[in-house]
């Protein structure tokens, strides 16, 4: 019995010393990558591409901000660490040529500081970019590619990878491609009787309705908005009266067809 107690005591002391042992912490290089977990960005993010839908923002707003978070991997430091980002020429996919162009500094976005800093004792930083709304976005999109630049202190240690069907791997969190356009999706409620009130759907018509009536475009897209049949009926009649007063007339996207509401709004 005494022996058992001694063995137990020795074992316990061994375990105890194990518990007291210092944890091994990371000791090595530090790196940077674009965050892909941010709640505001994550639902929109497709690989390295973030859409910026001007179409869902009121027409009179001509500037929009996008904030890209850059995370640190490795140890925090007790001093500021600098790194660079660089605007790259976006590779336009073949099928989008003619519909998408590279964003131009001063036209599609305001110049921004390309030197970034991970502040002392911080694990991330933000890169804020001011995007500009131009008329051309109603028919074409603009793409802005921003790539992180490796430095001696902050290297490319982590990124998610995209593997294509040929087993080519691409690290997608070392750059972000911002694609902006005026896309306003067709609301789910625009069908059936609503066609009699608003006529056939066109994005330009939807945008015109929102701008003239001062409708928040996020609310416009909601199911609740589609439930307000009587209000929609008023909008149809009001818009038809407004269109009738416009000189020169407002045309649909083809530039030839006069915009008009549906048959139920023609009185």
């Amino acid at each position: 019995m005494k022996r058992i107690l001694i063995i137990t005591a020795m074992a316990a002391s061994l375990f105890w010393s194990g518990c007291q042992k210092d944890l091994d912490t990371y000791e090595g290089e530090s790196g940077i990558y674009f965050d892909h977990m941010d709640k505001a960005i994550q639902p929109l993010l497709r690989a390295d591409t973030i859409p910026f839908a001007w179409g869902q923002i009121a027409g009179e707003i001509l500037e929009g901000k996008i904030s890209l978070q850059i995370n640190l991997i490795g140890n925090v430091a007790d001093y500021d660490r600098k790194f660079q980002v660089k605007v790259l020429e976006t590779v336009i996919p073949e099928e989008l040529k003619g519909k998408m162009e590279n964003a131009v500094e001063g036209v599609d976005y305001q110049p921004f500081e390309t030197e970034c800093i991970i502040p002392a004792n911080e694990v991330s930083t933000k890169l804020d970019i001011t995007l500009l709304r131009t008329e051309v976005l109603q028919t074409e999109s603009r793409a802005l590619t921003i790539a992180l630049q490796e430095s001696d202190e902050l290297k490319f240690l982590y990124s998610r990878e995209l593997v294509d069907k040929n087993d080519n791997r691409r690290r997608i969190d070392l750059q972000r491609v911002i694609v902006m356009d005026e896309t306003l999706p067709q609301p789910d409620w625009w069908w059936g009787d609503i066609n009699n009130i608003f006529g056939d759907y066109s994005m330009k018509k939807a945008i015109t309705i929102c701008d003239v009536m001062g409708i928040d475009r996020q609310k416009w897209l909601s199911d609740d908005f589609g439930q307000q049949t009587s209000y929609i009926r008023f909008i149809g009649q009001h818009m038809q009266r407004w269109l009738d007063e416009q000189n020169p007339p407002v045309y649909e996207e083809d530039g030839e067809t006069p915009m008009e509401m549906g048959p139920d709004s023609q009185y």
Partner: protein
Amino acid sequence: MKFHSFYYKIAAACCSVAVLATGCYGDKGNYDYHDINEVTISGIDLENVYQAYAYKSTLEISPKIHSSKDIDPSQYEYTWRIVPRNADADKGATLDEFIVSHEQNLVYPVQLADGDYTGFFEVKDPSTGVTWIQDFYLKVINEGAAGWLIACDDNGRTRLDLIAKDDKGEKDVLYPDLWKNIDFDMGKPLKIFFVGAGTEGFGFPALTTDKGSFALTGNDFQISDDTNLKWYFGIASDQLQVTCSAIETIPTDGLPDWWVIDEEGNIYRTECDMTAFFSYPINMVEGKTPFRAAPFIGVSYCDSWDNPEYTTEDEPWYNFAVIFYDVDGRRFLTKYGVNGYPSVMQCSGTQLFDVETGRDMVFIDSHDTGNNSLTVAVLKDPDSPRYYLYGMDLKYGEVEQLYYGEIGGPDIANARLFALHPTLNALFYATDNKAYRVSLANPGSAREILALDPGEEIVVFKYHKFSSWDAPSWLQENTSRLLVCSNKTNAEPDDPNVGTFRLYDIPSLEDEPITEALKIEGLGKIVDVTAKEYEGL
């Protein structure tokens, strides 16, 4: 220095004399003592909190007054106040606004908001000015009220009275002046009506005054700029006044239609549900000729789903006309369906009258039965006090003329108000204080059915149309009762309670007497009446 010393001595001497002198005028104890009256109050429950349901309970407390001197309790002045626990004098609350009675025994139909209150019973001896106070506690539960809402004119302010059943459902109780302490200038009442068809619980009473039209919302009949009906309109004047409102419960597309006419004779339509919103007025005959509408709307209340006259095999839904009247062209107009404009009425069958009447509309209403859609209008000759009856049946997509003729009868030239029985082929008209019955089939003669005191003037004379089945049964039982309200014309100038509310049962046979089903006196100066059927906004 000597100078000062001298005066100090004089002052000290004077003080000494003053002290001694007052001592000489000591109390000799020759007062005439009387025992003062002491009042004790019993009979008020101090152990428990009184509980009451607003617009249902009547708080009844009968305190006993004990006087140490033999004073008759009727010699005292009594005041009952019920003060909310959160009353705040800094926010304008005054003690007077919480007075509910000056009687010794409290009989107070509770008309308070949800909440906790402190009651004060004050007994004042007017001969001495001494007041004894006993407080007690009251908890009020307000679940809203259904009942008759009476809009009264209190010198340019709307006084809102309510008649509702007590919590046992037996007694009709008057709750006077619900807005006595409201801080909102709603204006002088012109019309009160109920909006709703039971759909999605959407329903509320509404009031039109000389300052606008307002929904009365919540359990406490709240009224404010926020409840202004103009917010339901895309295009409307700031001073929008709804002069006529009608719910077509069985419209073409299955949703109840809510039609209104404003003070300028504009006609608007929307769906009577939570998404109600009025679009542009439709005052163009066939989209071409502008017109002003008379403040009357004829709609069908027929809800017989199996009556083939009102539907077709191919289109088994309803397509009743809504009837409007063109003030400028003095003609009947009809409107079918949701979209488009009214047209000049086209009638099928025998042509009894010309729809271009040349007369002025003074009344329109419809039967409220499941099996016919009779609508009756009364028009007045513009140049003489002669009245004409126009009876029309609203069928599927058409109007058939059924009745026409000049209304004859005693004092018809002084007729001011008309009413159509909801099921019988009987029309009624009222003069100052009398009412007469006219057969639709034989309008040339009339029979007197009611004669009020000559000192009363009939101001409301109608059958109330209940718009849904959501109203309590005790209220809906009045569908077939003639509602007659009058104001005393010979009351004292400072008497605010001049109104009387009455309901009458009308027999099927013309020569049988009518019977009074309900009479409530003590209302304000009545302008209009509606029923609050339910609450939903």
